[in-house]
Every structure is written in structure tokens, then in C-alpha cells.
């Protein structure tokens, strides 16, 4: 049975602040009822992750971001042709575009919770600033998951800390 809510945190636990996504997942796992929520963790996004969006009511991607201006940022995602072919990793918007291409339908409502990262070096732990950002993002995510419906989440867009 596919659970209606997918929370997908991605990043590498051993690369400093890149661990923010997986660490937030760990927090949710320990503090949230998971009857309707599936938690998914991977190093980075790839084409096959489009198939994980099937039959979901709401999807929350969680990622570390050095481009984030505030402690965290919450945004609605739209499918986008990803012209920037950066590395093997894809952007969440590109994953949505893959879904749209292979399913011939719009993806479920997807949101991105970006948490501000500072350092992404192999073997490093979480930076002090990222640790504080994670705490704020955890509180925000718990609030989202307490009431997982589209309208409530839409109201939270662009309300950074």
C-alpha cells in the first residue's frame, strides 16, 4: 500500500552539511506518526525517483543548499526542463519533469524544504550554523506534517525563518 505522503531527504551523511536532508528525516522518524508518511533517503536525485512520486497526495523534498539565504526556505516545485546538466545528480524540478514525460500527467503537489548549508567536505561533521538551521527546519517540518494538506502547505510558502 503506497502511503499518501512522501518525505524525501537526500544528501551524504559523511559530507559535512550535505547531511542536513537525511538528518531531518531521522528527526521525523523519531518524532512523527508514520502511518501515512513514507520516508525516503538517497545520496542524490536520479531519473528513477520520478517513479517514487506515483500515487502520492503530497511530496516534500528536503535538501541542503548553499544558495539558501535564510536558515531554511520552503517553496512549491514546478516541473522544469533542466538545462543545466551539472553532475549525475538532478534537481527536484527535473525529476518532476521526468515524471510528467513518462506519465503524461502532472506530478502530485511537490514542495522543497531547503536548509542552508556552509561546508560540504568529505569526513566533516555538521557545521555549527547548519546545526542551528537544522533545528529550525525540524520544527517547521513537524508543523507541516502535523497538517499535511495542500492548502495549509501552500500558505507556508516563502515564509522563511
Amino acid at each position, binding site marked *: 500500500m503506497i502511503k499518501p505522503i512522501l518525505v524525501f531527504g537526500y544528501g551524504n551523511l559523511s559530507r559535512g552539511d550535505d547531511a542536513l536532508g537525511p538528518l531531518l528525516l531521522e528527526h521525523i522518524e523519531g518524532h512523527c506518526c508514520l502511518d501515512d508518511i513514507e520516508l525516503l533517503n538517497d545520496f542524490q536525485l536520479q531519473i528513477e525517483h520520478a517513479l517514487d512520486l506515483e500515487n502520492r497526495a503530497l511530496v516534500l523534498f528536503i535538501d541542503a543548499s548553499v544558495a539558501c539565504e535564510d536558515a531554511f526556505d520552503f517553496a512549491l516545485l514546478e516541473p522544469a526542463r533542466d538545462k543545466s546538466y551539472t553532475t549525475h545528480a538532478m534537481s527536484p524540478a527535473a525529476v518532476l519533469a521526468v515524471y510528467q514525460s513518462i506519465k503524461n500527467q502532472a506530478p502530485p503537489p511537490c514542495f522543497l524544504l531547503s536548509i542552508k548549508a556552509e561546508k560540504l567536505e*568529505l569526513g566533516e561533521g555538521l557545521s555549527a550554523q547548519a546545526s542551528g538551521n537544522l533545528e529550525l527546519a525540524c520544527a517547521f517540518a513537524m508543523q507541516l506534517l502535523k497538517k499535511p494538506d495542500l492548502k495549509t502547505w501552500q500558505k507556508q510558502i516563502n515564509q522563511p525563518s
Partner: protein
Amino acid sequence: MYEHLETAKNQENLKRVVVDPVSRVEGHGKVTLLLDADNKVQQARLHIVEFRGFERFIQGRPYWELPVLVQRLCGICPVSHHLAAAKAIDQLVGVDPENLPVSADKLRRLLHFGQVLQSHALHFFHLSSPDLLFGFESDISKRSIIAVLAAYPDLGLQGVKLRKYGQEVIRMVSGKRIHGTSAIPGGVNKSLTKAERDYLLEDIDQMIAWSSASVTLIKKVHCSNLPYYDDFATIRTNYLGLTKPDGGLELYHGGLRAKNAEGETIMDHVDYGQYNDYIHEEVRSWTYMKFPYLLSMGKENGWYRVGPLARINNCDSINTPLAEAARVDFKAHSKEAMVHSTLAFHWARLIEILHCAESIKLLLNDPDIMGHDLVTQGEKRFEGVGVIEAPRGTLFHHYQVDENDIVTKANLIVSTTSNNMAMNESVRQVAAEYLSGRELTEPLLNNLEVAIRAYDPCLSCATHAMGKMPLQLELIDVEGKLIDKLVKHSSGHIERLAND
């Protein structure tokens, strides 16, 4: 060869072009070109910003942590590091490969076939098919998986599902999508249940059919413009990889074999535990990447290629029928004993996808994968070497431990390092034969990236720092004045800031 383009004379009189970063490769790489007043290429180099912190990351840890820990070295091929480390650690607990329980050996092989299948599927369908289907100099907006899905929906979907299937094999064998603990010192920690086996069997015939069709497609693409495909970025090299005792293709465990450009054997059935006696690494002043070479051939002539092309060139046969037929067909297209075309990496890669799919089916029908004799132990040793054929080529893990089981020394040779010299030579070939004397444009420069991408390099950086990967191309004249500038922003938007 094109070694004369490694270092130009009178560099102060040359224009400098930088392609930074090279896209659709894992991690960070850049190409620099030095041009004279007539746009003739005088120097071409691929710089790979390789992180040499692997060893530091591993040293000081207890050895039993390594099979999980090393997966975090690379977000693209964690299973390859997991298995290479496990093979090295088997030796630390006194277990040689031939003494591993049969079920454990087969489950590790199943895991490895799943990994190679999903990695090759990602590379061909996602990273390379845009170039191969739309052309190397096509509009940049076409060169992505989204464009492939739009123009070739069936092919695009097959790529997604092949990749997904490989991931499902990994999940079933290791119990998790990532951070799995399948391989443990001396064996594996679980076998497949009948339900897991049946789940994977449901789709395997479809995967074989799609893999077979992909071989047909790449042959058609390659042979439709044979002179070009056989010439582009092509270099004559030595080849290194593992083979079975009978010389057959081997991805998990075998002896080291090297052949030269004429197909003559340089070494064969070498115990990889002695790799230090056969392979050395050279350091050059302009890059942090090392340049491995075969000691018997010397620094100048001993460099080699690894990966799918090397493996298909080196082996005498493949033990699955469809892949073997494809191998014979592949070799027949060349008039030489060895296929040197760099773009033939794609063809060889898809032959391996087919071999993996066939091998997965064979293993799924083998009752040993549901066996319960999974772990063995021997007498402790203080040194272990593990080598496998990772998707991109031969991967070496070498550890030494102390009395307290703490790793005191680690050495890794990853396949991208082995291909370092070859990628540089391919870049120089393309620069000399296709770019020299022409006005440089982004589509033209994509030719350089096509040459590099054929190797599927993994540049050891698994982070995905969004917003940090712009591409900037500058053309500076002999007086140092900027005369042309192309900027690709992280959004994908391209801006030309020319002649300002």
C-alpha cells in the same frame, strides 16, 4: 598520439580557453586549451579536481566499519566501494575469495550485477543518449534526458525502468536502497527470500529484452557513421581489467590481465594482491590526479584504459549467450584485434548491460541465493587487497590494520584515475582534429565533453551543491584581453558577453 599537446612552448603568447566545469560527469573537472593567433590548439589538458582525502577518511577507523563507511565516498557507485572494501576485509579475517561460502559469493555477484546494470543504464540513457541521438553539436536545450523523453518516449522510459530495476536488485540483496550492509567480513548478512526472488524474476525478461534492444540501437548509431565514430577521440592504448581463469569477462573476481594496442598480452592471471609489483602511480606538477602505469612498460608507454571498452577488448568470451553474440559482433566491426574507438565505450557498456541482465536471471534461478550458509572466518591477517570491476573500471582497495583492528594505511586506485592519461589524450585528439583553427562555440566545445563523457568519469564528489555549478568559457587574446565570454548560469540560462 597527441602528447606534444600536453605542454605548449611560449605559453605567454597563447590565448587561453577554459571549459569549467565539464558537465554531466560526476564531480568537478575542467579543460584548458591554449590557442595561437590562428586558433590552432597548442596545449590541451583535462584537470580533475580529485579529492585525495579518501585515505584520510578511512585511516583510524576499525575495519568492520568500512563496508558501510566507504559507500559514502561516492553517491554514484557506493556498491562498488562496498564490495571492493568487503573483499579486502575478507582477507583481514583470513578468508580468501575461494573460501567464501557459495551463497555469499553468489549474492555479492547478484548485488554487483544490479549495480553495474543501473549505473550503465544511467550513463547511456541519461548522460550520453542526448549527444548520440541529437548530435554532438546540437542545441544545448536538446542535450538532456527530458529532451530524450520527449523525442523518444519509449527509449526514455526504458532507461528509467532499467535504472529502477538495478536499484531494486540492490534493495532486495542489501535490504536498503542505500547504506546497505549486505557484505560483511567473510560473507553476507542475509540471503534472498523466495518472495524477494520472485519479485525480481517478474521483470527480468523485460530487462533482458530492453538491454538487447539498446545494443541494437547503439550498433546502429555507431555504424551509421562508422568513419566518424571510429575516429572521434580515438587513441591506441593498453587495456587493463580482471578476467576469469579461462579468459572470460569477469566483473567480480578474477586475475589481472593487460593487453597492448595490438592485442598482445602484457600480463595475465596476475594475483591482484600483488598489484603494487605491476602498477605504479606517477605525479605530475599541473594536476592533483595521479597517472597510473604498468611498471613493465614504463611511464611513457605503460598507461592504460579500464572500463567497459577495456573489459570487452581484453576478454576472450562472455558466459551469457546474448552478450557473447553481441561481443563477437562488436569485435567483428573492427579490422584490428582491439577496438580503440573511444565512442565504442558506449557500445561495450551496453553489451555489459545485457550481460548483467542475463546474469541476474541466471542467479535468480539459482537456489544458492536463498541458502543459509552465509559467513565464514579464518585467522586474522594485517593486510588485505580487494579489487573488482566497477562500472567505470578496475577499482582497488588496499588496507593495513594494527593489533586493535584499526586501519593504519589505506590506498585506493579508482577507475577514473586509471583513465586519467587516456582522457587527457582523447581531449587532445579532439582539440587537434576537431577544434583547431575554428572559431570556438559552445556546441563545438561540447565535443570535448563528449570525449570525456564516453569514459563515464566519476570525479569523486558526491555532493550536489545547487547553485555552484556554472559554466564559464573565456577567450583571451595574446595581450591578455578578454575577447569572448560565454556564461552558463546555474539555472541553465546561457549568456554571451562578447567583445566588451
